């Protein structure tokens, strides 16, 4: 099963609960800033997302949308 996520970087508050929840390590911290001064998370390019939605279930800010093929 393949999938992908879309992260709304303006909503992210850098709590990293999505990184804690992701079983495949698909999400990593980023160095860039968003407009409120947080470092939003981003998807790791080499890892394959299965679209399990555990990161989105855990995200307090509802910043993640999940798509599954």
């Amino acid at each position, binding site marked *: 099963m393949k999938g992908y996520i879309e992260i709304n970087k303006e909503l992210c*508050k850098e*709590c990293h*609960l999505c990184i*804690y929840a992701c079983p495949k390590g698909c999400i990593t911290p980023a160095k860039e800033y968003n407009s409120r001064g947080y470092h939003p998370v981003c998807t790791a390019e080499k890892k394959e997302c299965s679209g399990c939605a555990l990161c*989105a279930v*855990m995200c*307090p800010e509802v910043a993640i949308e999940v798509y*599954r093929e």
Partner: protein
Amino acid sequence: MAKKVFSRPKCLKEAIFHYCPGCGHSIAHRLVAEVIDELGIRGTAIGIPPAGCAVLAYNYLDVDMIEAQHGRGPAMASGIKRMLPDGIVFSYQGDGDLAAIGIAESFHSANRGENITIIFINNAVYGMTGGQMAPTTILEQKTTTTPGGRNKTSEGYPVKVCELLSSLDGTTYIERCAVNSPAGVNKTKKAIKKAFQCQIDGLGFSLVEILSPCPTNWKMTPIDSCKWIDTTMSKVFPLGVFKDNTTAVKKSREAAS
């Protein structure tokens, strides 16, 4: 063609939450919004936010909301439910609101068996005012007013609301969950849905207690605070269903009719 499997619930507004990073309130707000969407009760739901961190819940939930005085949510919910029996009335309260100043209102509305739903967020401290000791603070936990840890001889024991209210004959459905892991969040959603369904079926008082991380006032990272709920807090506040009389009440109603 990719299919969207998770997105923002319809009755959650587009506003950015004012909560700290990793706060459990935002997860609980989303779960309430998802349940309201799934049950199709957006037009009839009436929410009552507390005084506390979630005081601005009406900025996020796109349903009718009315602010109650500090701790008086269950009393107000009882009144609204009696005047508008078709409305789905829920009160969203924190531990300072429900277990401290509002314990009389919550206790007696539970004892009267009012047909309302209470979402009770337990984070073991007073969040909004800066992390003072709450009635639910566990023994030996350090807060700004108990810098040496909560001492049972001077500050007493943590109040266990689910155990307390489940001993009352008036209550129908009481469950305690936690939002510290994806599995816990899914269980919490089921519990909230069941509590709302209990009210829709007219079965009586339902309460869902949610153990929620407060990384700022626990002075931990969000991930550490999720682990702390597992290792320490859920030992004092065990998770599970404390009372579920929904089928018994349903059967006795059917037999009577």
